[in-house]
Structure formats: structure tokens, C-alpha cells
């Protein structure tokens, strides 16, 4: 038998004359490049249809074996048409619409599409069998990075640009009554019926136009399509989203919808909360597994009909059609109509079949059952359908295999009340029957949506806000007509070979080998071979894999079962999940001043704070010798009112609060119920029943919820009202020997003398003309200091007045870094820096503060046991023997055996002492003052340090009490 050479088409010969349902605009031409060569297409073309029209047949190389691949489904799922477009990799070429100037490249082809060196894998295929990685590269482990480097160059996918993209991603919330997933005849009819019944409807269609398979049908289908399109357009209650996918169904119909091709937005994630969901996803045509099934020129019947009828493209010159259903017959008729030589129609319903497709770089002949070979460059298969039941599975239905119709089918009876299924996914029928089914399902969906609305409106709430009108009582349930599915022969593979998964390059033989090796459950087989785990997510492959497994194990398809259909139904970009960057930041009212004065910004949780103004060491010296001011606005502040505050404080803090006099402040530490340090801060008593409680900056929100938890759940009888006032006040700490002088120049009606306003006291006063400021005589720095809480609107004013009034005193603004050094010199621990999520109270240097004689407080039993056990790590001071070495924070401290005995939690060069100082967590047997320990730097270097008291400067506290 002679095999005729296939003549290459010239640039335009693939384009047919006008077709009745075509979606291209022949009046306009778009230029684009294919691997650098300029080609033309029309608006409405997909990248793949334009390439096919231009005579291109080989569009990509396969994943592992680098085999030439062409179109098969000519849809979003097509595994042979993944392209690099500009700097965007993995573009679905049979879905993405052509744009002027697109730079389209084939992926994974080096040095070229036509001559791919890596196709040598085809000869060495046995080295890339499933489990190849596990079996081959186990040892030696140290060589794995080298293996990986080589293997990476063989892995398919395009190249991402190292330059961050400028495209915008978006999110939106929607609360429709009904989401209809799928815009074919049944979905369109369902949307129209639901909207006519008064429901708001979101109609979601994956393709660029509504209509489903009607779009590539004959004149009757196109007439029905026009009618349905007009009906959808006439309903203002329907919002249509094309090129969009309902990606999943979560509890209470929470449905993420990925919207593509929006003007100015790369992708948008619509988070829809629907009262009812109608799944009208239609059917996906299934490929056939046989030797040569991945050759360019082997297409599915729907792929052929799309190319011919939507894009007016000739998919080949001479065709063999293997058909088992009317769609295959229609494809043969379409081909004959447009002048393709249909060399043979093989009718599987009559027991006819094919053995293999032969050719190099594309189909050249088809071997039929019985041995006859037919020359052809196109082999069309129509062997059955897969119901894309993902959303139904996620709603609680497990599809069951039905041998009569040769597919896994959903059972609407297993679905929850708020999920319905319509059209082809349920069963087959004429266009009129599908429309009738959709119409009835849509009416029922609207009825149930009204019922859900009434149920939600009936939830009693304490808040009386105007409610939307409650929908009318239910009519009787709508009777949905049955869709009768005709028998279909079971055709999955003829056993001669070929690829079960063309995305992952998993062949029939490899699956059988894996099954023999013991991977004989469908979920194991999937994970071991990666079949169904490629870009099509199993929509084309899963059922064929199940069939291969069933055959090999002698089980039925139903016994074998299928894999779980997890979210998302279609790929979604990380950009769409992230949406627009929207991280709120907080600034203090003094931020404009900080910016004008060269503050280096520091991100501290949500806050942007000055880290320093150029020289943190000089800032430290200014505070120790003169006076400095720091913006401490982010300190959490809770205003407490009520007679039961002392009881609350007793419960929250490890120390005692019953005898805090009006005008006094006290430092307190909170532990969680597991005894781990939660937060610290000072609380001042402003009046008889009025306290101001401060928290750490990062802990403000947590502490508020913690306080509310105790008040609301454990002691609702206590009369305490909590108001967070963190941002109601701007907070400024004035610290240093001249702070009394400076504050005294601006304060009115308050005696700052130590006898009148001593250490750890609180007063209200007018500062720089601003009434109702709260002054605390406390400080983190260990110096004489006043923390002034100013009504926020006056924060900048008071700050500027302090700077002006203190000029002759040498007042210096200082930032977070200087404060960290100052507090480290003073040995003040920072919760979360010198403690971590395991540090219980007695390990945080709080031994004197924790009052175990109190009847109760949060975490008390744990702290009592910690104390009783002893042996816990201690918070210690450390000084490297070489005073110039500052061990990095998180350096490990080793015991005499070289085991880890602790870590450096804080370390700085102290400008005051002119040497390195540290705080650290250390095992108790090494914690004795004077002990020498080994500190191992992250780079492995060891230095010796001596254990000291945690307080490095002014251990008597004389400076702050003056």
C-alpha cells in the first residue's frame, strides 16, 4: 500500500468559504507572529484556529517524550495547544482569542518545533516511565540538585517573565438568587425561566459566546440559538458572564467564578453567594486511546465541528471518521459539505473499528480493524462523552458509572435542595427537550431560591433594620421532564497503545505497568503515574484511566470508581486569588513631620513607624544625656469604665490590682491559659471607675478580643465597658534627664515635681494648650520620662511644640531602633522578641511579678506547675567577652556538651556602655551570673559570652525615679 506524501498547505488554503455560524470577522485581518514568522488571522479566531488556517499542524511538543502534537478538542481543554504568548506562558491556544501583534511561540521545543532534540526521549521512553524519579534518583541524595537541574530543562511549560507584571487583578462579590453554570441551550433556558420567575440570575459560560453545542450545529440549531440569545438579552435580571468559569461549589452555595477577558483586568474572581445553583455544564467529548492517538491530525468530532463551523477552517484534506454517535455522523457530514475528502466512515455502532493511526509528524494513514489501511491526514473520533460533574460532586453527589450510556452520571436525587442540574450533564435530548428541561429546572431553581430567601430572612436577630420584601410563598414544585439518554457503546481504548493522558504523556502501557506494580486503585494510579493531573485536570482522561484499570483488574467500571473532583474546576491564576493589593497601613498623626525630617520607615505590623532619623546611636546618647521624644502612637490603648474593673484586671494579669489608687499606674503582664506570656503594658487609674490600659502595639487587637471574651462569656455580670482608643490618642514619650524641664514648659495646671507627680503616676492636664491629655510617668528607656497621650487631632501640634520648646535643651527625635537599644540596656523584655509561643511566665523574668497567691487569673495553674517543676529556661543578660562582637539575634547558646541550651533573643551594640549587650533564653544550670557560655553564630563561628543580670544600665533604677 502506498502512502502518499502529505502536501503542506499554503498560508491561506486552510480557510474555508463563509460558514453560517462562523464567529470570525472576515473584513478585518490581524497580524501575529508564530515562532517569529508573521501570519494572519481574523478577529474571532483563536490562536489555534488562526494557526490551523495558516496551515500549521504541529503546534507543540509533548511533556515527557517531546512528541509532536496538534489540535484534538480545539477547545480550552486542548492539550496540544499550550502556547507562550509574549511573556505569558501556558496560554490555552484553542481558547484565547487572537489579538493584533500577538507574539505566539510553541512551548518546550528546543532548538525548534520541527526539530526537537529532546524527542530523543521517544527512543529512551523506558527511562521516563512512571515512578522514574523515585526509582532512579534515590541515591546518592547529594546529587539530587544536579539531577533536578537537568530534568527541569525537559519539563514542559513556558517561561515566566522575571519582571513583575503590570496587569491588574480584581475581585467582586455577588449575591444572585440563582447561578447558572453553563450557557448552552439548557443553561440559557434555565436562566430565562428563573429570571421570568423574578430571580436575579448570573449566567456563567466558559466560552466566548453563549450557546454551547448549538453554535457549531446546523440551521435548526442556529435558529434555536438566535431565539435563546434574544430571550436572555430581553431579561434585565440576567447578568451574563462569558469566558468565565464557576470554579467550585462550597457550603451554602459559595461559588467562586473566574472571569477572564475583561477590559483592563487580567482576571477577576467573583465570589458569589447564590441561593440556588443550576449546573448545566453539558458534556465533554472523550478521546479514544489507540496506537498513534496523539499524532497531529487525530481530532475529536467536536474539535472538527468547531474548526469548520465557528472558524471556517479546514482541519485536513482527507479524513477517516470513527463514529459511535450522531455527533460523529454530523462531523462527517460537515467535512463532506466543506469539501474534505471523507475516505472512510467507520461506524462503531456496527462493530467497526480502527487499529492505529500511522505517520511521522502527523497522521498519514489509518489502519482499520481487519487490516485495511486508508491514507488520510485527518482521523476524527466520536466515541462518547464525559459528564463534567465537578460542581455536583462538590455538592455531595458521587457519580455512578452507567454501562448503558458509557459514562459516569450524576443523580439529582442525591443533591442538596439548593443545587440542581440541567441539560446534557443529566441526559440527552433534542434541542427542544434540552430547552424544556432547562426551563423547568430554572423555574424550580427560582422557586427554591425564594424559599431560601424566606428561611434566611426568618433568622431572628437583635438588630431591627429594614428588610427586603420577603418573596411570595412557594408554588408547588415544578415537574422537571425526564431526559432520556440513548444507549452508547462503551469505547475507551482498543488496547493497541497510545496515550491515555496527553497532558502528562502517560501511555496505556505505562498505566498497565503501574497497575502490575500494585497501584491498582484509581486514586493511587493517578498519583503514581500523574495521569489526569495535567492542565486538563482529568476532564478528558479520567474515565479512560478508569477503563484501563477496570480492564486490567477484571473489575467493572462501577466497582473501580472514579477520582474525586476537587476545586477549582478550571485553573485560576494566583493573581485572581490575591485580587488587588489592599493592605491597609496605619500612620500616626505625626507622620508628616517624620517624613519631612528624614525618618527611615519601619513596617511594624499594620503601622509604618520611624525606625530612626539617620543615627540611632546618637539618638540613644541624646536620651541618656539630654532629652528625646518618640512617637509611640501604635501602643494599644483600651479605655475601661465601670465598677468591676479591678476584678477584670485581677483575672487578666498575673500581678495584683485591687489596691491601685487613683492617679497611679502599674505594669502588668498577661498570660494565656497555657501560661505563655501573651502581652504586657501599663494600666493607669484615671478616676474611681475609669482606667486606661495599654498593650503592646502588635497585641492591641488580640488583647481587646481576649478581654471581651472574658467579659462576655465568663463574667457577663461584671460591669465593665471596654472601648479601644489606640488611634483616638497620639502618644509621645518624652525621655531623658531634661524631660521634666521640657514638659514643664508646655504643661498647664500640673506640678511636675517628683513629690507631686512621682514615678508610676498618671495625671490629666493641658499640654501646649490641648486639654484632656493623659500623662504617665513611665518609660521603656529607663530614663526620667513622661508618656503623653494627646487627643489624636492635636498630636502633630504637640509634637512640633515639644521640638520647638526643647531646642535649647537639645531635644532629639528618636525612633524604634534607639528605643530598642535603650530598653535592651535597661533589660526590658519585649513580648514576642524575648519570649516566643512557648515561653511561660517564669521564663520571661517575671518571677517577682507573678502572684500565685491570687485565687485565680488566666494561666494560673500552668504557672503554678511551672514554678513547682522548676528547671525552666531563664531570661538572662549576656555580654560577649569580646565587647566588639554583637552576636546576631537567634544565635544559639551551647552547653558544655555542645547541645543547644538557649538562644540570643536581643542583641545590640550599647552606645552607653560602648560594648555589645544581649538578652537571651538559657537553661537554668547555665543561668548563674558569671557563667561563661558558647554562643554559636548562624555562620558557625563561636564566641564566648558571660551571663549577667538582664539590666545592663542603671540596675537600681535611679535614673527613672528622679
Amino acid at each position: 500500500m502506498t502512502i502518499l506524501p502529505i502536501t503542506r498547505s499554503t498560508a491561506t488554503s486552510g480557510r474555508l468559504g463563509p460558514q453560517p455560524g462562523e464567529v470570525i470577522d472576515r473584513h478585518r485581518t490581524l497580524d501575529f507572529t508564530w515562532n517569529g514568522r508573521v501570519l494572519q488571522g481574523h478577529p474571532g479566531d483563536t490562536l489555534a484556529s488562526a494557526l490551523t488556517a495558516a496551515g500549521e499542524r504541529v503546534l507543540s511538543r509533548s511533556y515527557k517524550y517531546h512528541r509532536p502534537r496538534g489540535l484534538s478538542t480545539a477547545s480550552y481543554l486542548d492539550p496540544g495547544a499550550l502556547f507562550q504568548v509574549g511573556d505569558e506562558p501556558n496560554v490555552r491556544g484553542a481558547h484565547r482569542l487572537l489579538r493584533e501583534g500577538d507574539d505566539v511561540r510553541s512551548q518546550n521545543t528546543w532548538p525548534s518545533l520541527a526539530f526537537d532534540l529532546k524527542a530523543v526521549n521517544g527512543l529512551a521512553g523506558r527511562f521516563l516511565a512512571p515512578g522514574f524519579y523515585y526509582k532512579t534518583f534515590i541515591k546518592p541524595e547529594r546529587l539530587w540538585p544536579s539531577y533536578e537541574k537537568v530534568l527541569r530543562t525537559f519539563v514542559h511549560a513556558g517561561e515566566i517573565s522575571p519582571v513583575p507584571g503590570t496587569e491588574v487583578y480584581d475581585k467582586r462579590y455577588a449575591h444572585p438568587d440563582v447561578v447558572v453554570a453553563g450557557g448552552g441551550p439548557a443553561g440559557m433556558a434555565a436562566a430565562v425561566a428563573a429570571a421570568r420567575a423574578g430571580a436575579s440570575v448570573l449566567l456563567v459560560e466558559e466560552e466566548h459566546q453563549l450557546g454551547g453545542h448549538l453554535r457549531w450545529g446546523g440551521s435548526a440549531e442556529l435558529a434555536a440559538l438566535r431565539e435563546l440569545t434574544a430571550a436572555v438579552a430581553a431579561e434585565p435580571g440576567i447578568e451574563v458572564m462569558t469566558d468565565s468559569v464557576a470554579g467550585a461549589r462550597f457550603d451554602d452555595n459559595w461559588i467562586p467564578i473566574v472571569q477572564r477577558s475583561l477590559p483592563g483586568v487580567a482576571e477577576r474572581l467573583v465570589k458569589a453567594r447564590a441561593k440556588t445553583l443550576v449546573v448545566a455544564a453539558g458534556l465533554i467529548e472523550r478521546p479514544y486511546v489507540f496506537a498513534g492517538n496523539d499524532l497531529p491530525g487525530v481530532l475529536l468530532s467536536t474539535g472538527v465541528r468547531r474548526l469548520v463551523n465557528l472558524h471556517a477552517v479546514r482541519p485536513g484534506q482527507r479524513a477517516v471518521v470513527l463514529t459511535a454517535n450522531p455527533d460523529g455522523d454530523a462531523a462527517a457530514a460537515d467535512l463532506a459539505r466543506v469539501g474534505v475528502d471523507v475516505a472512510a466512515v467507520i461506524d462503531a455502532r456496527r462493530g467497526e473499528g480502527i487499529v492505529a493511526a500511522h505517520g511521522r509528524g502527523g497522521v498519514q494513514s489509518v489502519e482499520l480493524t481487519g487490516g485495511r489501511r486508508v491514507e488520510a491526514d485527518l482521523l476524527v473520533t466520536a466515541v462518547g462523552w464525559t459528564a463534567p460533574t465537578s460542581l455536583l460532586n462538590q455538592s455531595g453527589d458521587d457519580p455512578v458509572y452507567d454501562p448503558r450510556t458509557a459514562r459516569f452520571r450524576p443523580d439529582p436525587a442525591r443533591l442538596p435542595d439548593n443545587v440542581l442540574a440541567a441539560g446534557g450533564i443529566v441526559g440527552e435530548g433534542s434541542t427542544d427537550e434540552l430547552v424544556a428541561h432547562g426551563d423547568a429546572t430554572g423555574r424550580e431553581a427560582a422557586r427554591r431560591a425564594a424559599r431560601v430567601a424566606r428561611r434566611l430572612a426568618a433568622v431572628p436577630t437583635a438588630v431591627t433594620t429594614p428588610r427586603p420584601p420577603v418573596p411570595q410563598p412557594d408554588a408547588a414544585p415544578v415537574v422537571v421532564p425526564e431526559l432520556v439518554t440513548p444507549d452508547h457503546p462503551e469505547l475507551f481504548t482498543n488496547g493497541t497503545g497510545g496515550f491515555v493522558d496527553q497532558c502528562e504523556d502517560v501511555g496505556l502501557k505505562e498505566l498497565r505497568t503501574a497497575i502490575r506494580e500494585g497501584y491498582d486503585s484509581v486514586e493511587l494510579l493517578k498519583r503514581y503515574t500523574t495521569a489526569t493531573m495535567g492542565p486538563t485536570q482529568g476532564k478528558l482522561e479520567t474515565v479512560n484511566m478508569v477503563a484501563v484499570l477496570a480492564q486490567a483488574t477484571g473489575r467493572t467500571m462501577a466497582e473501580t470508581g472514579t477520582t474525586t473532583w476537587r476545586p477549582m474546576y478550571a485553573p485560576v491564576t494566583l493573581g485572581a486569588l490575591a485580587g488587588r493589593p489592599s493592605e491597609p497601613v496605619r500612620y500616626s498623626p505625626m507622620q508628616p513631620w517624620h517624613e519631612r525630617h528624614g525618618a527611615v520607615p519601619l513596617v511594624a505590623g499594620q503601622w509604618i513607624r520611624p525606625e530612626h532619623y539617620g543615627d540611632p546611636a546618637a539618638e540613644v546618647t541624646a536620651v541618656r544625656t539630654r532629652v528625646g521624644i518618640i512617637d509611640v502612637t501604635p501602643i494599644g490603648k483600651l479605655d475601661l469604665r465601670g465598677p468591676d474593673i479591678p476584678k477584670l484586671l485581677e483575672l487578666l494579669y498575673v500581678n495584683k490590682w485591687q489596691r491601685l489608687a487613683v492617679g497611679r499606674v502599674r505594669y502588668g503582664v498577661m498570660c494565656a491559659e497555657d501560661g505563655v506570656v501573651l502581652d504586657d503594658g501599663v494600666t493607669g487609674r484615671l478616676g474611681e471607675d475609669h482606667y486606661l490600659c495599654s498593650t503592646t502595639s502588635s497585641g492591641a487587637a488580640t488583647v481587646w478580643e481576649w478581654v471581651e471574651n472574658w467579659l462576655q462569656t465568663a463574667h457577663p455580670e461584671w460591669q465593665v465597658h471596654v472601648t479601644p482608643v489606640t488611634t483616638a490618642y497620639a502618644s509621645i514619650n518624652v525621655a531623658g534627664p531634661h524631660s521634666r524641664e521640657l514638659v514643664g514648659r508646655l504643661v498647664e495646671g500640673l506640678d511636675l515635681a517628683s513629690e507631686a507627680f512621682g514615678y508610676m503616676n498618671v495625671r490629666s492636664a493641658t499640654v501646649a494648650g490641648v486639654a484632656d491629655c493623659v500623662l504617665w510617668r513611665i518609660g521603656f528607656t529607663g530614663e526620667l520620662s513622661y508618656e503623653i497621650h494627646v487627643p489624636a487631632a492635636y498630636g502633630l501640634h504637640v509634637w512640633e511644640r515639644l521640638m520647638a520648646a526643647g531646642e535649647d535643651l537639645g531635644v532629639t527625635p528618636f525612633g524604634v531602633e534607639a528605643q530598642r537599644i535603650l530598653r535592651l540596656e535597661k533589660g526590658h523584655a519585649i513580648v514576642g522578641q524575648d519570649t516566643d509561643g512557648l515561653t511561660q511566665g517564669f521564663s520571661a523574668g517575671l518571677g517577682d511579678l507573678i502572684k500565685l497567691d491570687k485565687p485565680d487569673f488566666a494561666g494560673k495553674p500552668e504557672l503554678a506547675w511551672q514554678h513547682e517543676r522548676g528547671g525552666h529556661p531563664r531570661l538572662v543578660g549576656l555580654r560577649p567577652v569580646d565587647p566588639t562582637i554583637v552576636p546576631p539575634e537567634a544565635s544559639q547558646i551551647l552547653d558544655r556538651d555542645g547541645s543547644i541550651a538557649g538562644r540570643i533573643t536581643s542583641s545590640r551594640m550599647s552606645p552607653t556602655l560602648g560594648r555589645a549587650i544581649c538578652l537571651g533564653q538559657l537553661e537554668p544550670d547555665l543561668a548563674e551570673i558569671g557563667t561563661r557560655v558558647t554562643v554559636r553564630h548562624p555562620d558557625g563561628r563561636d564566641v564566648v559570652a558571660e551571663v549577667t543580670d538582664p539590666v545592663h544600665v542603671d540596675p537600681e533604677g535611679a535614673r527613672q525615679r528622679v
Partner: protein
Amino acid sequence: MMLLPCPWCGPRSATEFRFCGEAGEAGARPDPATATPEQWRRYLYLHANPRGWSTESWYHGSGCRRYFTAERHTLTNEVRSTTAAGGAP
């Protein structure tokens, strides 16, 4: 993502809430004066985690900022009753 009926605000998406563990008997705080380490460990770390009806504490952090108790079926996510902490509404 399920809807959770807040007794103050009505049905809202679960992301507005924080789950605060089992309430009632399972989540009750032992008397700190007499608690054994075993009891305290159960209180801190162990949950009944039933397959079925569970009494839970929730905090509506993105709404009314109230704590409440809900009886939720862990298999179906049905909520059959809610009680605002400290009574009312």
C-alpha cells in the same frame, strides 16, 4: 464557605467569624484551685470533635464583635440554635 447565623447580625459568611473551640461541657474551664494537670490539658488541647451535633463558641470579629454559642452539625454544617453570650437577644 458556610453561612453562620449570628444572633445579632443574621446569616453571615463564616470568614467573618473566629471559631473559639467547643463550648458547654466540652469547653468548660476547670476550677483553677482544684484542677489537675490532666483536667487542664483536656481543657486546653483536647476536644470531643464529634461527628454530629457540637456546641461551639464563635466570635463575630468582622461584625458585632460579640461571642456566641452555636449548635452546629459537623457533618452538614446545619446550625440549629445560637445563644448570645451573657443572654439576649
